């Protein structure tokens, strides 16, 4: 249900229906992410005392949710075979805009959220427009624009933090039953993405552009519009991530987003999303965000040697993504 690529043939679908559930599971690109998350969960639960504590689960769910939005920003352009190196810079700019509106201009929370998201969309439209019109690689355009957005954010803020409205922090700190409000937002976002790519024509068009741009153009899809749309939505997700991060930390600083770019790529890759476009897996994407969050959290929980922490982080990420190669082999054998 959750895996969307270009339409498989009827014969393949018929064959898949006939095969065993295990075989079908391992044929899915998200299966390695699911296995990885289960393994990590098991290891950290056994080797640490507090990993399963309610407060830690609450914290994990909040961080994973924000990482989910950061990764969604990259996902939206990755599905068309593009990339957005300005994910963090847009987040930084939006954080500053939000801070200025709340602290300096005294705006209420709701209009601030709306304007911040619109600023994000505007940044994305600029990115998409430049990529289309200048016919340059998204790498170059978004890299250049990341300097612009970061520069504007720093220029406005001069590196100063902003206070945010008291009520806005409730969003980032809110609990809903055993989990957090942010986690629910993440689930809603993943469901929307799944519906978008699986059941909406425009979502299928996006995947078609990512699969083969020339073929998509020949079949009547307006590729330029899809490019602009994906870039705009990408930056909207950055803006939302910035809002959520500020609501969680209770402060808005221009340094927000400085490490988002790598995380956004890492989560997509770990979640089984091909960075050259054409596919989307909701479960994989969801797991990707959780895997990265759990690894960082688990390492702190296990009190690993601080001098080797980066090395452990790299090794665990490598092991997690290596499961994908194992999955492919198993899938080949099973089929």
């Amino acid at each position, binding site marked *: 249900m959750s895996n969307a690529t270009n339409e498989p043939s009827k014969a393949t679908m018929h064959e898949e229906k006939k095969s065993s559930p295990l075989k079908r599971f391992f044929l899915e690109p998200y299966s390695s992410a699911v296995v990885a998350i289960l393994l990590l969960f098991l290891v950290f639960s056994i080797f*640490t*005392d*507090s990993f399963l*504590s309610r*407060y*830690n689960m*609450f*914290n994990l769910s909040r*961080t994973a949710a924000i990482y989910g939005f950061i990764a969604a920003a990259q996902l939206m352009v990755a599905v068309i075979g593009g990339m957005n190196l300005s994910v963090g810079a847009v987040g930084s700019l939006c954080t500053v805009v939000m801070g200025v509106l709340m*602290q*300096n201009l005294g705006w209420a929370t709701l209009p601030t959220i709306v304007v911040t998201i619109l600023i994000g969309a505007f940044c994305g439209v600029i990115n998409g427009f430049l990529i289309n*019109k*200048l016919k340059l690689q998204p790498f170059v355009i978004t890299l250049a624009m990341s300097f612009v957005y970061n*520069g504007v954010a*720093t220029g406005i*803020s*001069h*590196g*100063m*933090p*902003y*206070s945010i409205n008291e009520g806005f*922090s409730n969003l*980032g*700190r809110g*609990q809903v039953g055993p989990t957090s409000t942010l986690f629910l937002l993440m689930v809603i976002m993943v469901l929307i993405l799944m519906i978008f790519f699986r059941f909406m024509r425009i979502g299928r068009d996006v995947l078609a552009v990512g699969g083969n741009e020339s073929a998509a153009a020949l079949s009547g899809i307006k590729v330029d519009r899809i490019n602009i749309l994906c870039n705009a939505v990408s930056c909207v997700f950055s803006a939302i991530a910035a809002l959520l*991060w500020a609501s*969680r*930390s*209770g*402060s808005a*600083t*221009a*340094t*927000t987003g*400085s*490490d988002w770019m790598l995380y956004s790529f890492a989560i997509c890759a770990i979640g089984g999303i091909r960075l050259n476009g054409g596919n989307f897996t909701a479960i994989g994407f969801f797991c990707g965000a959780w895997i990265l969050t759990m690894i*960082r*959290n688990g390492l*702190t*929980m296990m*009190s690993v040697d*601080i*001098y080797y*922490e*980066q090395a452990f982080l790299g090794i665990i990420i490598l092991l997690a993504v290596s499961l994908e190669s194992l999955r492919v082999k198993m899938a080949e054998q099973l089929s």
Partner: protein
Amino acid sequence: MRKTSKRLLALLCAGVMTLSLLGCAGKADKSAETTAAETTAASSEATSAAAETSAAASTVNKANLTWKFKQDKYKLCCYWPAPDEFFDNYVLPGIKAFENDFGQTVEYSVGTEWTQDVENQTVEALAAKGYDCFMIFGADTAGANGLYEELYNNGCQVVNYAGLVDDPQKSAFTLASDVYTQAYESAKQMIEGMGRKGTIINVLENLGDVNTVKRQKGVEDAVKEYPDVSIAQTVADIKTVDEGYTKVSDAITANPGVTGIIATGGTASKGVANALSDYYGTNASAAHIYAATQDQSTEVMNGIAKGTIDHTIGQNGYGMGYVSNLILMYLKDGWVPKTWGEHIDTGMVVINKDNMNTYQKDIEKVTNDLVATIETDILKQG
């Protein structure tokens, strides 16, 4: 039609580029005033109060300075790697007070990122413009020495400030806090506040930085003096506020019952402030964790006001800005350091809820004491 739109787009891009360049050129000289003014307006009440006090007038006593300076105007220049609260709120007011007291103008440049590469390029360009007295924060504790050596070879004077660089350092002096002592004293105060018993989380920044190593040792040495106190966990390699926030939140969760948390770097302290604000915000019944931080950032000062942070160590950024420029003028007039590469401790002030609005007076007193020793203890006539 397509060609026309492409031409229009190209013209638009060229126009934007030209306007940007013109805008940059026109703003350069005014940046000092605008930055200070806007900075003060944007910061919180506690921090801006300190900045305003110091920017208004200097209370430094110049009676001990007998030297008649040879030049009316010195080519003084200050470099800071990236926009930052510490520079804007604390170092800059010291520079402004120095300018008022000595009728000098200090050109200051704030870089775009904390890298030695950007620092080298900017400072070299400033040297090419004719500036020959530099106060510089070394972005990289090893790489900064190369830049300082190059400046000396070109007839410039250099004072390194706000942080140590690797030995043997190539600047005449370093005007910075004694990070070991600050960490040690901060840890001792925290342990006393905890009732001399309990467990603590030690929060460190970049492990490759010589300052972090000294801070870590300072905390560990203080803990060794108390048999009933131990370090439950050390979290490190914090480079951004957000990273600090996440790691500290995780560490607090991993160590239920921890009684103290100490951060000895400015960025990590902001992370601690945000993490504790979130911790108490999501745990109404949470027991108080004694928190000790570094610097007077808005996040930290807000934490002190709310009671989530118990004390912070205030650095004397004011003195760094004031005294560094004064020393540079002496060096340019032919005075030489009594000890080359000496680290001059610019002092510290413990800030808590009781003195959070008045600590600036204490900082200016420390600066006053420092100025009084320039001709006797720091420099000699060459």
